[in-house]
């Protein structure tokens, strides 16, 4: 443990955040929902990590648990979330979720943007008010300086008339502009990590393209790392350096972007890639769909959670034990008994 930490510290220029054996459970009346179950990954500086998965796979909860804002009745049961901060290691999982330390990290070190730009902004406060609030909270500057900075940020995210927009309310903006304002807010304190939870899912294709382009540009300029969460494989291919595939609370594959798309190992990843229609491919062919449905997360089968739907499933192995995530080739980790 000690040794490991030292190596991480030595690599502080490379690694920004390390999530180890994270478990987040929801204690519901009907039972325990294991939203995130033993997930580990790390993310390097200036890297974009894409997390893909279908609804209910725990990708959003993973992101929320990094900021410690998992809604009630969810709880981080186990695991470490190590943030490298000026040569120090902070375990976010150990911090009091409403304490001063985590509040100093939220918005400053790690910022987040959400899927629904309409509901993510307060309807009764101006855009400027909400951005300046973040700035004033984390930076020691005056009101007027904060306003200047806000204007500058609005300009940077491509809002053409910031002097007018800064005093407008979220309902006066279109979906795309709202998401731009959210990005301005997230980046206003120059965070080292930006968590983007399906930021373009609610937007139109043409606007999605704008926002993706903007995020790439801003990443180049600000040099932050991004955790990009989405269910859209096209978007993932567009923006990430590395991809983590999740299924029912488990991380099942983790590799760099090219490996994931051109040499996927896990049957689920393979199936997922085959099941999406691709433009340019001859139309009106049959898709290779994954059979069955995602089992209800409250009543999980024994063994591999993909067992019932897997083409390669081997009885007696896959439905008995849960495969662990192992490194198959350098930087390519997969959790499947095929690669033992």
């Amino acid at each position, binding site marked *: 443990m000690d040794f490991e930490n030292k190596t991480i510290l030595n690599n502080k220029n490379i690694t920004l955040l390390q999530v180890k054996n994270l478990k987040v459970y929801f204690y519901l009346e009907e039972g*325990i929902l294991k939203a995130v179950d033993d997930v580990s990954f790390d993310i390097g500086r200036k890297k974009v990590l894409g997390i893909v998965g279908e609804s209910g796979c725990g990708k959003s909860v993973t992101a929320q648990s990094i900021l410690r804002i998992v809604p009630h009745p969810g709880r981080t049961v186990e695991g470490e979330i190590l943030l490298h901060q000026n040569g120090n290691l902070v375990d976010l999982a150990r911090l009091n979720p409403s304490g001063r330390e985590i509040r100093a990290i939220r918005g400053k070190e790690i910022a987040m943007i959400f899927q629904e730009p309409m509901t993510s902004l307060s309807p009764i406060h101006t855009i400027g008010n909400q951005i300046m609030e973040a700035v004033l909270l984390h930076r020691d500057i005056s009101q007027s300086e904060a306003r200047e900075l806000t204007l500058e940020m609005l300009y940077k995210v491509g809002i053409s008339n910031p002097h007018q927009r800064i005093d407008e309310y979220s309902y006066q903006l279109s979906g795309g502009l709202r998401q731009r304002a959210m990005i301005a807010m997230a980046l206003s304190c120059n965070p080292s990590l930006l968590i983007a939870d399906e930021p373009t899912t609610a937007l139109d294709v043409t606007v999605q393209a704008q926002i993706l382009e903007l995020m790439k540009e801003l990443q180049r300029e600000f040099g932050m790392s991004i955790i990009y969460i989405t269910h859209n494989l096209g978007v993932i291919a567009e923006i990430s350096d590395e991809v983590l595939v999740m299924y029912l609370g488990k991380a099942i594959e983790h590799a760099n972007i090219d490996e994931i798309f051109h040499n996927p190992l896990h049957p689920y990843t393979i199936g997922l890639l085959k099941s999406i229609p691709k433009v340019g491919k001859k139309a009106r062919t049959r898709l290779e769909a994954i059979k069955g449905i995602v089992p209800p997360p409250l009543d999980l089968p024994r063994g591999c959670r993909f067992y019932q739907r897997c083409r390669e499933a081997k009885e007696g192995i896959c439905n008995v034990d849960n495969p662990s995530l192992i490194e198959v080739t350098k930087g390519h980790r997969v959790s499947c008994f095929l690669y033992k």
Partner: protein
Amino acid sequence: MRNQQFRKVYKAMKNNKRKISAEEKLYVATQWQLMRRKFKKHKLAILGGTTLVIFYILAIFCGFFSPQGIYKQHSGYIYAPPQRIHFFDEEGFHLRPFVYGLERKIDTITFRKIYIEDKTRKLPIYFFVRGDKYKLWNLYSTDIHFFGVKDGPIFLFGADKLGRDLFSRNLHAARISLSIGLVGVAISFILGCIIGGISGYFGGMADMVTQRVIEFLICIPTIPLWMSLSAALPKKWPPTKIYFGIVIILSIVGWCGLARVVRGKLLELREEDFVMAAKICGATSGRIITRHLLPAFLSYLIVNVTLAIPNMILGETSLSFLGLGMRAPAVSWGVLLQDAQNVRTLALHPWLLIPGLCVIITILAFNFLGDGLRDAADPYKL
């Protein structure tokens, strides 16, 4: 710590296994079955519902459950206090409860009449005893009472200024007070459904006019309006006519709320895809309304009706209390409370407030029930 967690998980999983056959039952459960499941979880609502059932049974059979006739004056028992029911005397426990006879004395300091328990006169309580004659629902003449004592009256809630038994009077009052809520709501319900239905289904001008009318009616403070209207009811009217007059007055405002609910829900449901789907299938408007719309909002109507009843009961009680509603010789809780208006009388005879307690319990029960029903109304929401 971890072990504990694990045990919890394990237990939950085991429970899940056992639940599988129950799950299939859940999948084929109708709306009403699901609602009942959800409702049963609401302890207060169950309590409220049970209370109301008891109250209504007592009110329906009020003649049978009252030990005395309600107009019978017991001149020796003016302002007699409630008698306590005893199970123990100096000899110990008795299975048959009894009350002690009351002895009237004059307080030597204040020169007021006071009643004290006469420990030598033990009056056992019997069930199904013969007593004053009464007519059950104005049909069957009988003199069987649910309970009573063999010689002399029994005053569980005390007696009033004429020596009439307040327990019996309260039961008879419940009949009017409780039924006025139901009848009033029934009328409001019909009005509300028709007007709200027209407003929501046709929209346009009809909708605009009804909306404005409702907004206007809601502006008028109810009690002064009710007072003014009921003051106009002719004094000569018999109690039954007054009763319906009051019901109608209460409904004048009562329908507004229900009409709003009906309209709102109708507008909401009309936009639902499944209604569109039925239309595309070729279903007639009649089928869409009876098969799709009505079942979907019946539950909401029931909730709102339940919550509207207390207002009606309160209205009648207030009016009668002021002397503008039901009038003696008819009895309702409000009429009974008229006797409690004077603070000095009240201080000496606090049991005159018991009808008030009945009102409070009834309204609480209706609110609890309504709350539980509201939670259960949409069993598909997780």
